């Protein structure tokens, strides 16, 4: 193991203390609710998924814009299912690994890849291919957690459906949160993209299904978690049978990136003909609800879309 130097120790202590004291500010829902909107810009790049990720990130300003030197980055891919990449229920491991490398290259002190998966947790990490793909990247750790002690309650002051959620602590203690959803259908919410994927960060998912309006709750959750960047893995799309599959898999070969969660998800909706029919972003209730909360726009006419092919 590496020796800890005094400088290192002091630095880390400072970062840790800062991280520990920052969250209340980061997670003030009043703030994020009321944030004024500039015209959103997203990138949509088609082609080989590794190059497409790199291109998409560079189109919206490069990873350095989001990841400052020495920052702690938390990546939230979909790795909830003990399935291999072919089934398109988890984010493709190459996408996760590419983003992790970009973060480290941008100067991130540490990248934590985390999800709260379904049973059996360790197998999700293994079969998704994410653990293996990220094993060689320095200062990068992939974890699946399944114990309540890794969660911390966060109050939602303005919430109508949610008053409090228990969020994974790493999300609260990171400087940068990057969502890496995979594009898939969902038999309740229609699609499962970036905002729906945030349900993987909370302890009591059952509550969303059993006790509240799940569509509005997802929007409030998205308003609560301060997501800095969303990179949607649309290299494949699970057209039906989602979220768990198995179902029909199509290959839009597109990576979508942006800071506007609603706009990225909205573009994601247009990537495929879900359930053999397709629908518009505004038809998806949780996306419309997020727009209503002022989180972003799902009207793609109002969004600058930087397209490219690699």
């Amino acid at each position, binding site marked *: 193991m590496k020796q800890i130097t005094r400088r290192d120790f002091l630095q*880390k202590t400072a970062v840790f203390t800062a991280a520990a004291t920052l969250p209340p500010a980061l997670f003030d829902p009043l703030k994020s609710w009321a944030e004024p909107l500039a015209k959103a810009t997203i990138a949509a790049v088609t082609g080989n998924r590794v190059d497409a990720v790199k291109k998409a990130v560079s189109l919206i300003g490069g990873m350095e814009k989001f990841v400052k030197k020495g920052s702690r980055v938390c990546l939230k891919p979909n790795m909830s299912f003990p399935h291999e990449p072919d089934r398109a229920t988890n984010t493709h491991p190459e996408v996760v690994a590419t983003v992790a490398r970009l973060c480290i290259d941008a100067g991130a002190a540490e990248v934590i890849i985390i999800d709260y998966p*379904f*049973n059996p947790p360790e197998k999700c990490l293994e079969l998704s291919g994410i653990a293996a793909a990220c094993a060689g990247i320095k200062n990068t750790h992939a*974890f699946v957690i399944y114990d309540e002690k890794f969660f911390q309650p966060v109050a939602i002051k303005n919430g109508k459906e949610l008053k409090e959620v228990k969020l994974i602590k790493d999300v609260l203690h990171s400087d940068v949160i990057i969502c890496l959803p995979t594009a898939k259908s969902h038999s309740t919410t229609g699609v499962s993209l970036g905002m729906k994927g945030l349900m993987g960060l909370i302890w009591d998912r*059952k509550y969303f299904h059993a006790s509240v309006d799940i569509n509005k709750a997802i929007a409030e959750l998205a308003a609560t978690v301060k997501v800095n960047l969303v990179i949607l893995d649309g290299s494949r799309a699970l057209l039906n049978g989602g979220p768990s599959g198995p179902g029909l898999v199509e290959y839009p070969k597109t990576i979508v990136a942006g800071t506007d969660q609603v706009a990225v998800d909205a573009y994601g909706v247009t990537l495929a003909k879900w*359930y*053999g029919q397709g629908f518009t972003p*505004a038809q998806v209730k949780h996306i419309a609800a997020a727009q209503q909360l002022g989180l972003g726009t799902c009207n793609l006419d109002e969004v600058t879309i930087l397209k490219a092919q690699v």
Partner: protein
Amino acid sequence: MRRWVQLAGLCLFGLLFALSPLAEKLLLPPDLFLKADPLLSLSAFLASRRFHESLLYGLPILLTALVAGRFFCGWLCPLGTLFELAAGKSSKKKKPPFPQWNLYLLVLLAAAALLGLNLSGLVDPIAFLTRACTFILYPLAMLLTATGIEIVRPVADYLHLVTLSHAQVFQPVFSLILLTVIVSVALFVLNYRRPRFWCRSFCPLGALLGLISRIGFFRRRVKSHCHSCMKCVHSCPTRAILDEPWQYRPGECIYCTACATDCPVHAVSFSLARDPAARPDLKRRRLMLSAAAGTLAAFAIRKDGIAKVNPNRLIRPPGAIPETEFQASCVRCGQCMKLCPTNTLQPCLLESGIGGIWSPRLDTRLAGCDQTCALCGTVCPTGAIRTLPLEEKKHAKLGTAAIDTGRCLVWAQDRLCLICDEQCPYNAIVFRWKDGSRKPFILDTKCNGCGFCEQVCPVQGRSAIEVSQHGEIRLLEGSYIEKAKELKLELKENAGDDAFIMQGGPSEKLPEGVISK
């Protein structure tokens, strides 16, 4: 010398137990001690009338018994070693309270086994020790590890040791931990007061080996210059030497050779000899009574109504042979439960009748059966659970799930729940349009009873979707894949009925989260 052999045996037992998840990579089978235990394999054979390879594994110990009686007890038995290590001050004056009851117990077990009731696992030392390790040592070790991690976690958080601060330990739980603790503590307390009382008075494996020793030819001999100082009588840990030094019961001697070591005039030796052995002084009436008790126990337990119609939910592990043969073969060692990665395998209390106590069942409310695992079958010492390749195991249907529409959040409360569908590995749960909204249905031909739906159901208390043994496939031999084909089951991972949405139906068939146009 003997102590070293004993410790080596104990370590081997512990090592095989700890490493059992790596069953396929080990040179020795992880259930070596259980397999090699002739009492377990013989009674499973008698009760189920099925040949199993463990009968062959039992031969070496039977052979040592032919030569040197209860050599196994004194040199190899891990429970015997533990009992010796945990003994209090030996109480040399005390006679065992129930002399030779182990022989009566053996007769009882044999009579019960002949009538199809296998009780050997409850009293066999190896099965007992494996059970104690599964239900006590293993969860306790995990608890202590987890506690240790919790103690250092704040420090790890502070020093930013990421891996350590995210360390998690799986904490297994078992429904019969308390009962196992009570039985084990009681035995060890009694052993403290009367060292090896179990081995002397109750152990039926010891009785079996002792019986065989009557035709053995490695004997204790006392030379004529013995001056009857009686030291050997006192040093014998099993009181096998009677009131005179040159008389002993070979059936109780564990060949520890303490008497030879302690003899001041070196008059005692162990050598090849063919003495007429001292007969165990068994009372014929007691023997008859034991046999009668075994018969009666088999009759009363096996002819309980539950044997014909079991009203309880009883989901056996994948690959469990048909119930009658299963109960006759299972020796309640608990290895399958120890290896189960999701912890769904739990010991029965009364779910399979009083004779099925400690036998494995799935608690699908606690956890589902991992569809990427087939470990339980790899460690069953008597073949009560068959060793199956993963693909075969997936087709060994455990039962079928059923929805309680009065409790289901979708059926009863019109909620937007889909958790069971999301977790089903086979898409056996599908949503269909019914009475104006989408509702979950179960396709029984695609359900293999894994139980993940039941585990994750958000309804508190009893799940709104439950697996029962209905439709289970239990085969003594042959392929489960073939059987599933014959029954027209489709235990394949495909889109199944969800494809109905794909066929361009009216737009209201979209998921609820989408506003139809």
